[in-house]
């Protein structure tokens, strides 16, 4: 089924569950809500099972999508029908409260909605902006001479924001400079943004104390652990020392005047040589530093180590091959 129909099905599901008298069971949803594949009389037992399984998968996905946009389905168990679970949406609880915002404030929000280059954070921010815009009057665009962009983002951030709201513990694989790679089980309290970096602050269950985790060092999928509502974040959280990468290597890099600000910020100045300001840059990830030098497009040059300089040259030469040839660069 094409994805465009999923929006239509979800809309019909929202309308049905908002108007339901009491509740709707899965069977009622499947039989009556437009977009689901109802049971058919002529099916063999096998076909019927296959269709039912497909409906169950689709309904679970739809429940997850509704949760993602802020409409949690309430489950209602009806005593007279045994353990048959029904669903309902509290339309009042789910609806967007009135929001009072000037056209200038909305224009600033439009800039903020484009801040995250990360796909997960970006789509969430843009969706929030559409929601805020819905009830606002149409207005002429306000020119702001303002822009914002963040290159660091994490797919983990939306998952963690939901877990914080749910009061649900999470488990993930984490690499720390101090204690290496391992599994962590954490009660998430808050996300912290400093500069371009994202951190999670929470209670580490195994260590029994509050810790911070840099999101870019969480590997793979974040898994929910246990029930929702098992803990509450303290109201006032003291933001602890934020754990950063511990760089172990030093690169000597030349930068042209007033360029490479991100590099300058974490480097120590060595000397000025002609049109180049020379810095010692601590680093731990050769590929990341190579890409940073490349992105400065000639405003940076690697003096040491030679391996890094060679990698920069190799990438530039490969790019030149692709740029020069209509067809291909590889091979």
């Amino acid at each position, binding site marked *: 089924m094409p994805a*465009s129909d999923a*929006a239509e099905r979800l*809309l*019909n599901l929202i*309308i*049905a569950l908002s108007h339901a008298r009491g509740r709707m069971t899965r069977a009622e949803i499947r039989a009556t809500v437009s977009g689901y594949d109802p049971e058919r009389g002529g099916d063999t037992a096998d076909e019927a099972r296959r269709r039912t399984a497909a409906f169950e998968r689709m309904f679970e996905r739809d429940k997850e*999508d509704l949760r*993602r*946009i*802020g409409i949690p389905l309430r489950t209602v168990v009806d005593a007279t029908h045994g353990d048959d679970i029904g669903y309902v949406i509290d339309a009042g609880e789910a*609806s*967007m*409260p009135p*929001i009072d915002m000037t056209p*200038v*404030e909305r224009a*600033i*929000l439009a800039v*903020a909605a484009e801040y995250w*280059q990360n*796909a997960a954070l970006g*789509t*969430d921010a843009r969706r*929030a902006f*559409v*929601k*805020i*815009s*819905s009830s606002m*009057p149409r207005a002429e665009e306000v020119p702001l*001479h*303002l822009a914002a*962009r*963040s290159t660091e983002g994490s797919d983990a951030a*939306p998952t963690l*924001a*939901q877990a914080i709201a749910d009061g649900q513990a999470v488990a993930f694989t984490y690499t720390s400079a101090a204690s290496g790679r391992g599994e962590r089980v954490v009660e998430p309290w808050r996300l912290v943004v*400093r*500069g*371009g970096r994202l951190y999670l602050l929470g209670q580490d269950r195994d260590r029994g104390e509050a810790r911070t985790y840099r999101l870019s060092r969480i590997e793979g999928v974040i898994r929910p652990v246990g029930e929702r509502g098992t803990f509450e974040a303290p109201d006032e*959280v003291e933001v602890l020392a934020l754990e950063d990468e511990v760089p172990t290597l030093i690169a000597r890099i030349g930068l042209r005047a*007033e360029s490479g600000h991100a590099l300058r*910020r974490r480097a120590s*100045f060595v000397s000025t040589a002609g049109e180049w*300001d020379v810095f010692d840059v601590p680093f731990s990830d050769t590929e990341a530093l*190579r*890409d940073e*030098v*490349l992105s400065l*497009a*000639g*405003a940076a040059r*690697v003096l040491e180590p030679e391996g890094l300089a060679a990698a*920069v*040259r190799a990438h*530039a*030469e490969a*790019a030149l091959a*692709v740029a020069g040839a209509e067809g291909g660069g*590889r091979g």
Partner: protein
Amino acid sequence: MRSRGRKGAVVAEMAVPRLTRLLGIVTHLEEHGEATFDELARHFGVATETIKRDIDTLWCSGLPGYGMTDLLDFDGFAYDEGIARLTNSQGVRQVRLAPAEAMALMGALAAMIASGTAPEAATGALAALSAAVTDANPVTVIGAAPVTPGVAEALRAGIERKRAVALTYVDAQDRRTSRVIEPHRLVTVDGLGYVECFCRRAGDYRTLRLDRIEAAGETDDAATALPRAASGFTLEPAYNAKVRVARAGRWAFEDLPGAVLTVDGDDVVATFGVANPDVVVARLLAVAPFLASVEPASLRERLGGAAMAVLGAQ
């Protein structure tokens, strides 16, 4: 917006963003009365065709039974004139911000405020957002570099009145200089505030860190240098690019906004809108050994130019 697996499989717009817009259109029409498809397209930042398709979808949605009185309803005559006039909403309303949505937008806004680039009104916007969120705000933003009070205001006034601004600036080597700049735009990059400007002392375009500006005062001197067309980044995609890359280089394109990736044998073909060529060129350089082809020619030229510059410097 991504497809996985099958060759040539292109997935249409994802359900969740579309659903959010569908709810938004109904809420907007309920609160502000009829609107033309063009007006809705501008307000929601999509094409007029997309709005028309949305109205068509809304028109055949409603309560189980889906009879005449169960459906959302629009005025058919108005529809033919390109006007959305809602006559029955079936109680459909926009939904409140989900925790992840609130976090993403409030985090971005707070980062802009902390970086010193956001005008006064940003504080009001953040307060209005906080009031609309029922869960506790899940994000704390810590300013990375404090900006001297008055600096951003003087720069903003200079931008608006097209006047030069006199600065005291301390560079990374702790050299204090006086310079006159023509400010064009304030930008937040990775949580730090900058001003994009023409620096008269350097005789060239510069991007200066706000936290390194000790003092800024407006002059009566009119700005003469035009904002550099390529300066910083514009947020509207200017054109579409198509890149063929070996699977090992796939990561560089996965998180570009609006990117559609299709798998073709051992390669991945990525198509995406290019808003800021500098960002795209940096990504292309990072995966250069895995690239098979880059289109259009203008992007290839920029890539070639950047590669030449890198080799020249190196």
